[in-house]
């Protein structure tokens, strides 16, 4: 039986309490909003892309511990990556939060592996994915806020 500590690991709680890269981004080249209407998670994700590489990402907004921690860890994980690399990373992250950890993928996931427990809490998958959807929407140049619905 899955434990709460599988979901609320120390790192997750830490990032939820003191999110990294939190705040507006001066000179952002891309931005998008993400909304989880079910519980009110609402974030704006900013990215500064230069020469096809994401130099910096930040986020603002409010939401549950999982969504905030996920956004926080994400902004660190995508730094220095191209859009294609970010997409590939998201695929792995999405697999992690819906199916659980898979042998061979932990190295690629790095810090993102702390969300390995989310798959046992299906109602929280959308929380964990929200910031990623927003970031990908920003990089894809979409205007409307992205929703988890």
């Amino acid at each position, binding site marked *: *039986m899955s*434990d*709460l500590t599988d*979901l*609320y690991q120390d790192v997750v*709680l830490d990032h939820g309490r003191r999110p990294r890269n939190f705040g507006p981004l001066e000179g952002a080249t891309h931005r998008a909003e993400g909304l989880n*209407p*079910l*519980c*009110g*998670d*609402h974030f704006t994700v900013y990215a500064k892309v230069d020469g096809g590489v994401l130099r910096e990402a930040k986020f603002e907004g*409010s*939401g*549950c*511990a*999982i969504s905030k921690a996920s956004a926080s860890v994400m902004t660190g994980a995508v730094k220095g990556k191209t859009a294609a690399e970010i997409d590939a990373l998201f695929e792995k992250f999405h697999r992690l939060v819906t199916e659980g950890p898979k042998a061979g993928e932990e190295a690629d996931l790095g810090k993102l592996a702390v969300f390995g427990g989310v798959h046992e*809490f299906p*109602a*929280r998958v959308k*929380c964990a994915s929200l910031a990623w959807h927003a970031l990908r929407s920003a990089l894809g140049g979409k205007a409307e806020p992205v929703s988890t619905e």
Partner: protein
Amino acid sequence: MTPGATQAGETLRRPAPARLDPEAVRGEFPILRQTVRGKPLVYLDSAATTQKPRAVIEAISRYYEEDNANVHRGVHLLAERATRAFEEARVKLARLIGAADPHEVIFTRGTTESINLVAQTFGRTRVGAGDEVLVTGMEHHSNIVPWQMLCEEKGASLRVVPVTDAGDLDLDALEGLLGPRTRLLAVTQVSNALGTVNPIDEIVARAHAKGVPVLVDGAQGVPHLGVDVRASGADFYAFSGHKMYGPTGIGVLWGRREHLDAMPPWQGGGDMILSVTFEKTTFNALPYKFEAGTPDIAGAVGLGAAVDWMSALGLPAIAAHEHELLAYALEALAGVPELRLLGRPRRRAGAVSFLLGDVHPHDMATVLDRHGIAIRAGHHCAQPLMRRFGVAATARASFAVYNTRADVDALVRGLHAVREVFA
């Protein structure tokens, strides 16, 4: 088959005992025996949907095992039995809410459909360009959106009675908002998010004094407080079966006879007609004018059984038990550090919304779920109300007749566990 003409369907009525036995009541709900994540289920989400007593579940099964046929048409025995069971349920509901006439009880899919029905028939004929429809700041989306859509369609404006910091309706503001262009007031009897009980009789009286008809959302009102629609003076009253120990998919619109007679039909089809030709079709009398197609017969039977079940306990005994339990809960919750209740209305029933420190309600609900406790986290289909209180979401614990003090104690223990996780 006319409603009210039933014969042998009267249930034997014993006088209801004054106090109910919570453990005995709880024992009638099979679903409450299960464990969740290894812990006993503590179900505190009855405002979302209530659990069903064995009597209701069995009534539905028995209908399908013994009486099932289509209603109002057939000449054979099963059709007779199905029709009688269906129409008896209608009579029971009329009696429950104090309606003068079962013809005024329309079966719908639920509160939402009932309100849409009124908006699209009564609303469309009464509301024109430049008119106003009045709702309140504590309404469920189902009692906002149909009116918004009507106003959009007609070029009318939606006005809103404000909610005080205490979570009550601002009755002085209501007075000011009942104007010469106000065509209808839609108001909830009990708030599903805050638990606020509104003084419906007084509100209706004020509205009528200005010539404004009133639709009351009774979804939370019926199971916790009951209603006497004639005494209240309301023009329309809507409620859902699944919020009052009945099955999902069935509900009621009650309307005053003169309104229902004047309203154009809503959905077209079988049963709501008297005769059909391609040149002209004439419509059926009440209540069938508004009941197109084969109804949820089993749902109506189940709802009738829920009415019987509630009546056997007695609505006053149910209300007294819930009132005591809610008082116990409010006191217990006040003892949890950093817990903030939303609103302190004059009168409360059924539900309480709260926040715990800066823990997001979603996280609270996940932790509580791991302890077997089911609460609701989110905006409770009342986004405007949430915004009014400056929050995106709250946690909501809602009670029904099968809840006990042990449930409240478990919730409090669970909230302490939440604090530990997020300390």
